[in-house]
């Protein structure tokens, strides 16, 4: 067990370094930050001088080594754009993204599970068919469009909910701000959370439905029915329980995607999270912020995968021998 964990941790470090290397190689194609940093009056020699001072003229390998060295000491540099320490900028924005991701993941899981169970049990009902058709729209409509539509209906036409921003926030400790404790903060969460969670919700719903239908066909369910157990006990006590293992795995993995793909939702709703920060940084070619952000996302995925692996290990005895031996 300990050997397995150590091995996985080492692999995680390698993954992180690989992500950093790939992102660094890509930055060259994003453009030259100097044009955003200096005004149009700057002479060619001024530009060259700043490029030199920032070390942008060094070979990419040297830049990468410098970045890794500093990052290992927790120093991600100063943002070219906002002139603030990158680590502080990201930590300031992280609570907004985390709260949004948490609410939409919960929303997606609860409604997805409920609707999935309903449509599986009432397979031929009219409502089930309507839900299934509607879920197709949820899967196929781009997040951007859903966000704009929701803003249009609920903010501009009905004026029930705010169109953008996070509302009033409360500071907790040094590093956390929360919108949960104010009315405007809670109202501001509704539309972005729905937008961000809609895709995951339909995904979970379809997964639950498919898994449940599968389980309902198995012999032990038939047997339970034959024993005369109540429908409730059969459906929820036996069938649903066995459905949940893959559903929880997928939901956990999707949490990483929700954080990473919050970019679009954050842009549409002007949500002050790390995703919006990243997009603005790409526009400006703010290399320090971009690299730190990608490292953070890589870290989140690595940690989630690690936890999932460890959970497998703990939950499913059949995997233990297999996993440890294969060590993929």
């Amino acid at each position, binding site marked *: 067990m300990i050997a397995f964990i150590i091995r996985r941790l080492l692999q995680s470090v390698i993954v992180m370094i690989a992500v950093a290397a790939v992102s660094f190689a890509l930055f060259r194609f994003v*453009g030259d930050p100097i*044009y955003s940093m200096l*005004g149009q009056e700057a002479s060619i020699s001024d530009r060259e001088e700043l490029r030199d*001072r920032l070390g942008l003229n060094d070979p990419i390998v040297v830049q990468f080594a410098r970045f890794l060295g500093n990052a290992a000491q927790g120093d991600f540099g100063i943002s070219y754009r906002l002139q603030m320490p990158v680590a502080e900028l990201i930590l300031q924005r992280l609570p907004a993204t985390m709260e949004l991701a948490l609410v939409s993941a919960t929303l997606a899981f609860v409604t997805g599970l409920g609707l999935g169970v309903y449509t599986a049990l009432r397979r031929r009902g009219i409502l089930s068919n309507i839900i299934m058709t509607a879920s197709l729209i949820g899967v196929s409509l781009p997040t951007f469009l859903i966000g704009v539509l929701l803003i249009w209906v609920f903010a501009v036409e009905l004026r029930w909910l705010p*169109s953008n921003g996070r509302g009033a926030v409360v500071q907790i400790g040094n590093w956390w701000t929360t919108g949960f404790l104010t009315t405007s903060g809670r109202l501001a969460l509704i539309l972005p959370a729905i937008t961000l969670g809609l895709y995951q919700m339909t995904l979970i719903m379809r997964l639950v439905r498919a898994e449940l239908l599968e389980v309902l066909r198995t012999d032990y369910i038939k047997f339970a029915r034959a024993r005369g157990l109540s429908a409730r006990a059969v459906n929820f006590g036996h069938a649903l329980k066995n459905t949940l293992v893959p559903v929880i795995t997928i939901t956990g993995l999707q949490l990483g995607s929700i954080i990473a793909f919050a970019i679009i939702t954050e*842009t549409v709703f002007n949500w002050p999270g790390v995703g919006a920060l990243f997009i603005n940084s790409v526009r400006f070619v703010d290399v320090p912020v971009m690299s730190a952000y990608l490292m953070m996302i890589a870290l989140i995925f690595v940690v989630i995968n690690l936890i999932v692996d460890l959970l497998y290990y703990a939950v499913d005895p059949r995997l233990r021998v297999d996993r440890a031996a294969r060590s993929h």
Partner: protein
Amino acid sequence: MTKLPSALKLTASALALALAAGSVSAETIRWARVADALTLDPHSQNEGPTLALLRHIYSTLVSRSVDGTLEPNLATSWEIHPDDPSVWVLKLREGVTFQDGAAFTAEDVVFSYERVLHESSGFRAIHADVTGAEAIDDYTVHVKMSGPSPLYPNNLTNFFIVDKDWAEANDVVAPQNFAAGEENFAVRNTNGTGPYQLVSRDPEVRTVLEAHSGYWGDAPEITEVIYQPIPEAATRIAALLSGEVDFVQDVPVQDIARLEQSDGVKVVTGPENRNIFFAYDMTSEKLRSSNVDDNPFSHPEVREAMALALDRDAIRQVVMRGQSQPSAAPLPPFVNGWTEEMNAYDAPDVDRAAELVKSVYPDGFSVQLDCPNDRYLNDEAICQAVVGMLGRIGITVSLNAQSRSLHFPLIEKWETDFYLLGWGVPTFDSAYVFNFLVHTREGSYGAYNGGRYSNPEVDAKIEQIATMTDLDERNAVIGEIWNTVMEDRVFLNVHNQLLAYAVKDGFNIEVHPENSPTMWTVTVD
């Protein structure tokens, strides 16, 4: 029947009165724009949104009014020294205080000069001719130039004055140095002489300003400014329509018509100090992207044909939805050196243009057009339209539209044959256009002369006007330079951009040619 409306009217007017009474004591404006100020350091970033926000907190010696003329601000007068034409004498306003209570004196101006000329300043190039500033007494400053600089005060409109003692006490005698890896105190803290002072700032989320009670000028009607960057256009407009913001500065041209029809919102438009034009490599032996063995743009016939193929009115109507002023020279109308003729452009004549191309290249030729897609109003769409127009006269253009951070290096490194560029003239004088776009590239000249145009005669004249003190003679030389530039067809100009501001009814805002609206001049109905 008649009684009810009048009663209503009475209530309404009482309500209006109450509102008006309220407006005297406190009026807030919520101002949304595409991007936030990058920093609050007054000498670090020479960039539009940064300057626009800082102008509310820090003051300049001289201001630019909405009609483009210079107005006194912290300097009450400026004149050339009677004995030395290379010295500007600035008389400063008395009785001005910084927001921390310190008095404004000549030593603050001298210190600000040192700071703005520092290596890490973003404004060094604007003051490149300044060799030093000297305080003669508390309210007189002599600015020494490397030679006579008759139009130098035009360069003062974005030069913010900081308090020397404050800067020294907080260790911010120089602007942010990125290589140092530390955040400068001035990035998030301010102390200016402007009409507003900083209350709070959450970068890229919200910045709140309140009226500075010690401001030397008239107290503004707007007493609180809440500034919110909203990058996404649809969200920005939605926020205005839903009443969450009062003023949207960057209105996409496609939304103008709809906003004009919406209740409670009005749109104001005005010319921006920015021209959009194409330029091409006229001097290389061979182009990088063309299928012919010589340089098509070196032929005057081809350049003329391109000018005849360009249908500026079509671009104005279809691409810009009427929001542009087509013109023939890359110079906004309020800039010194502009003449009526610059607005006159040939009507498109496709047949004649096609013939001209055919006379040099019977089979036509191909070339790549480089275009930014996130810098100017509908920049990529303008390029697409021009690709079609040139296609009709036998020029096959492949479009390479990309982000500005990839586009501008092409011009600097001379890696483009044919490109779109927009140019503003912050000094409001033609010399600025010549220095950057027309003069042969050498030293500080010609940084954006991506067309490699080089004419020794023109270069000599450009250098000459830099130090000419007789303004009439100088303007005559400027006219000569423009004539040559137009005859040689150095630029294929498209139009002057128009700005559109959308504002909630009740607020009166004028469009500023530098796109730097001032909240202290906003009036409330």
